[in-house]
């Protein structure tokens, strides 16, 4: 299962990087969002997937699942959702103000 998850995360990283390198602003924003998902999948996988009981003291199980990656992911997901929402609004506003979503045209003039 870990191998499968790692491959999925790798594919998502590839897709995210490809999108983030494109010219259109919307594609870049979606690229960062997919990049974030890849990161979260990797964070979940790297400490090992569910192997034992829930990490509660009363369970009396031989093995427990490591609770830390899940706590980390929760924080990270919240942050990345907020950032994606903010980035979408920023991109929309920039499109309205500047009249383009082509990154080549957003370079700025040479002598301003």
């Amino acid at each position, binding site marked *: 299962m870990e191998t499968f998850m790692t491959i999925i995360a790798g594919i998502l990283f590839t897709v995210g990087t490809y999108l983030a390198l494109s010219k259109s602003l919307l594609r870049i924003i979606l690229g*960062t969002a997919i990049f974030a998902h890849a990161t979260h999948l990797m*964070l979940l996988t790297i400490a090992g997937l569910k192997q034992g009981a829930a990490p509660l003291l009363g369970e009396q199980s031989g093995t427990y699942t490591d609770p830390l990656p899940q706590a*980390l992911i929760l924080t990270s997901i919240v942050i990345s959702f907020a950032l994606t929402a903010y980035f979408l609004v*920023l991109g929309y*506003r*920039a499109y309205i103000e*500047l009249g383009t979503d082509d990154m080549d045209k957003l370079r700025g003039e040479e002598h*301003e």
Partner: protein
Amino acid sequence: MNNLVVFPILLPVLSGMIMFLFRDNIRLQKWISIIGLSGALVTSLFLVNANMNDGIQVLQVGGWEAPFGISLVADMLASLLVSTSSIVSLACLIYAFHSTDKQRERHYTYPLIMLLVCGVNGSFLTGDLFNLFVFFEVMLIASYVLLSLGGSKTQLRESIKYVAINIISSMLFIVAIAYLYGVVGTLNMAHLSERVAEIGQDGMITTISLMFLLVFGLKAALFLYFWLPGSYSSPPAAVSAIFAALLTKVGIYTILRMFTLVFYHHTAVTHNLMIWLAGLTMLFGAFGAVSQWNVRKILAYNVIIAVGFIVVGIGLNNAAALTGTLFYLVHDMIAKALIFILGGAMISIAGTHKLREISGLISHHPLLGWLFFLSALALAGVPPFSGFVGKLMILQGGVEKEFYAIVSISLVTSLLVLYSVMKIFIHGFWGETILSEDEEKSTGKGILIPGSILAAFIIALGLGADWALIYIDQAVEVLMNPSLYIEAVYSKS
């Protein structure tokens, strides 16, 4: 256990949250922000004092013991940086009172500044890698909004790049954290240091450390600085002064912390790479600063040069260089804020940022002119101002380690720094006065209080260097002996 440690984080965030409730009462917002930041300053000075008398101050949040809970650690380095950041942000806030327009004030500029300070202070104080990430994000999100607030075309264009780069680098930060957790199974910095020392820093951990260097290098503008000149020169002057003084310094602090506490076993790979990257950063930054004729761009490139210089000190990693690094770090936070505030006042008076169109400001604004002259000298490291001591000690550390090439690059770039800021002084303040007092776009009065506070600190740090070195030596002692830090975090008292 010492609850004092949490106050420099808690006071800015609480006052910021209260200020959100009083959207229309700008006067009240100003008072609350001053009180909140002064509180943070006073508590951080208490922390410096407590460090001097009783050693490192630690708070295990919620009473959970060290490797399991979250620790806030205020050693001398963190306390000094927190005090400096409080002083600097207080000065920038006072300048913001005079220079921010009504629209921006109504749209929460001051609460956002408070949240930014909370993120910065939190990053300095935390002893846990994931909390570092969270405080980084608090700081960055506040900076995104401050950067784009106002919505002018330049601002929007530059914020898109800034936000995109920082989102990618934050995600890479999590990837690096995940790898490190996968290998050593902990995120508490003291515990990390112990585990890495136990299993030895093999190739895997060195690779992870290089990934951290990439991430922190992006935040600190170490070599990967291409996003900085545009984004630091587009927001209002008070905001870019805070950015220049604090944001890159947090990246530098985390490099300093991680590479003296955790990844200090293989200096041949990591620290040498850092030195050469820093050398290139200084060179390219200097070329940028010399080539520009836009006042704000010249100042932004100076931020990059300083980053390179400080990281050289971290890479050299001996007692002399680290002492110099800390001294220069504290000096640079104050000097950068001062020169950005003065540059902002200059632009608001002249109404343009093109240096060729500004001339002879000194006849109506002697104080502004001489403060600018003073901070230009301090920035380039001319004695008796504060830049000199730090620069001298870093160079001394470089000579001890026989990195003569880097020492000469540093000296040459210091001259170029002096040239680039003197260019502003000569073209902007000397020469024929082209604007009469009626034609000026603003009076430039707001710089008086923050400018003299910061200038006083620069002079005091330069003349009272012996006194300041007592504190900095103690901070360096902790950096040179990670065991002091680890023991303090694990002690139960």
